[in-house]
């Protein structure tokens, strides 16, 4: 099953995610300008700045469940809009999956993403092809499960997730929105990439980077570039 993924890596992952989102704020807002209310980048940046503050704190002693719950509460309180409760629910539910306290193995990691996806789907009631973040997250989690079943390494599993997430995100360009603000545009929403599907892609992109590079330290001076 390879090395376990520690809470330090989780922390690195979310720091990388926050940085990636902040870099892409205006891109996300542009996407939301075309088919929404022009705030997805603003919302996510607001949440990510709070997340960065949160991630400066006490990663030394927490277990993964507590850590993910606090990430969830940070997103819920700071992102706002639709994305806040959705990402928040993803992490809240991921936190309820089994861990080894301060680390997870690849099976547990995959299960964690599945728990998150199921929670997000219950919360938002969106299906695949509704043109939401589900179109990124669902194929990514399915790709993880398939790669895991094929007994691939963590690096391969997460690379598969990233690739499926990317395809899913791009697929949102072609489809009509059925959920969220973009649905008000009906067929006019076709031709535009969904902002939430895009911010969700970065979750898998940064996971593939941070969860597969191992290092044992987790002190707070360490920041993802």
């Amino acid at each position, binding site marked *: 099953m390879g090395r376990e993924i520690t809470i330090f890596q989780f922390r690195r992952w979310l720091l990388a995610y926050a940085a990636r989102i902040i870099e892409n704020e205006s891109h996300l807002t542009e996407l939301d300008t075309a088919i929404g*209310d022009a705030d997805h980048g603003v919302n996510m940046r607001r949440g990510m700045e709070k997340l960065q503050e949160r991630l400066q704190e006490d990663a030394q002693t927490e277990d993964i469940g507590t850590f993910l719950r606090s990430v969830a509460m940070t997103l*819920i309180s700071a992102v706002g809009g*639709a994305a*806040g409760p959705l990402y928040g629910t993803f992490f809240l539910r991921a936190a309820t999956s089994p861990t080894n306290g301060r680390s997870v193995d690849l099976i547990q990691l995959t299960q964690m993403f599945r728990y998150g996806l199921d929670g997000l789907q219950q919360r*938002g009631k969106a299906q695949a092809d509704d043109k939401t973040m589900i179109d990124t997250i669902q194929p990514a989690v399915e790709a993880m499960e398939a790669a895991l079943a094929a007994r691939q390494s963590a690096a391969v599993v997460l690379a598969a997730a990233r690739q499926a997430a990317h395809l899913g995100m791009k697929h949102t360009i072609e489809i009509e929105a059925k959920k969220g*603000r973009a649905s*008000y545009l*009906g067929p006019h929403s076709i031709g535009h990439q969904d902002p939430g599907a895009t911010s969700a892609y970065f979750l898998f992109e940064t996971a593939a980077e941070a969860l597969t590079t191992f290092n044992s330290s987790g002190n707070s001076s360490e920041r993802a570039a």
Partner: protein
Amino acid sequence: MHSFMNTPGSAITQSLRGMALCHPDIIQVHFDPDFVERVAPTQAGKVAIVSGSGSGHEPLPIGYVGFGMLDAACPGPIFTSPSPIQLLAAVHSVDQGGGVLFVVKNYSGGVLNAELTIEMALQEGIDVRSVLVNDDVSIPIVANRRGLGAAALACKIAGAAAESGYSLDAVVDVTRRAIAASRSMGVGTNVNTLPRNGRGVNLADDTIELGVGIHGEPGEVRSVHQGVPEIVGMLIQPILDDLPYAADDRVLLLVSGMGGTPPLELYLFSEAIHELLSAHQIRVERQLVGNYLTSLGRGGYTTTLMKLDNELRDLWDAPVHTPALHW
């Protein structure tokens, strides 16, 4: 367009402080998490009414806090629904043991944040319910219909019912009935501005947009040369078609500017609406014309009809004392 709201965080905080300073007898503001609460004392056991909304729709929701309407309102960032942390803080502050009702406009963000909050409150043993406001007939898929002017009306009906001692179940029922009796449609004219990112969408001088939302969501572009009665027909007919209407039906008419349309123009359209309704033998029993649900400085307005019965009319007429409504 320039806007001083460009830096949402601090500007909204200052604006909230300004509201409290200007209406110290009616509202008080709490920060971190942000919510606004009524000053008037409430009866123990009274159902508390709470509404959250993105900012930029003023007077909704804060202008509706006060006696006979909302017990608390939670303002989010511009056009972004407030967080469960805010909603839960408001619930803690206003619950009198009679339970709490959230009046929620049907947008993903509003709904999801309310649901999360309700789950949290239930875990603490507080009975919080929600009603969804979904009056916008311009959306073909009924489940996706947005909340427009009926949000203000629902807050008034719920507040009056709560003030006069209805139980939580009864408040939920009558508010749902008020919403079910309401239909709305928006029209955008000229400039639509989302000041946060400095983007302004300018329509040509001779076009309107039918079925616009209150967050800059575009509608269907039509030429304006069709004239006021034709535009009013395109707005009102879908409303009338969506609920069975019969001669002598009584309605509450709300014509709300989105912010950038002068009162003169709102009254011009109101006159044409009255004319059309009277041609259908529908009686305007109550009405409200002004800026009651805005979209920052956007040009345009929304029209809402709520079919009245005696109970709804009496709840509408019940005394109210808020920054925006007072009788």
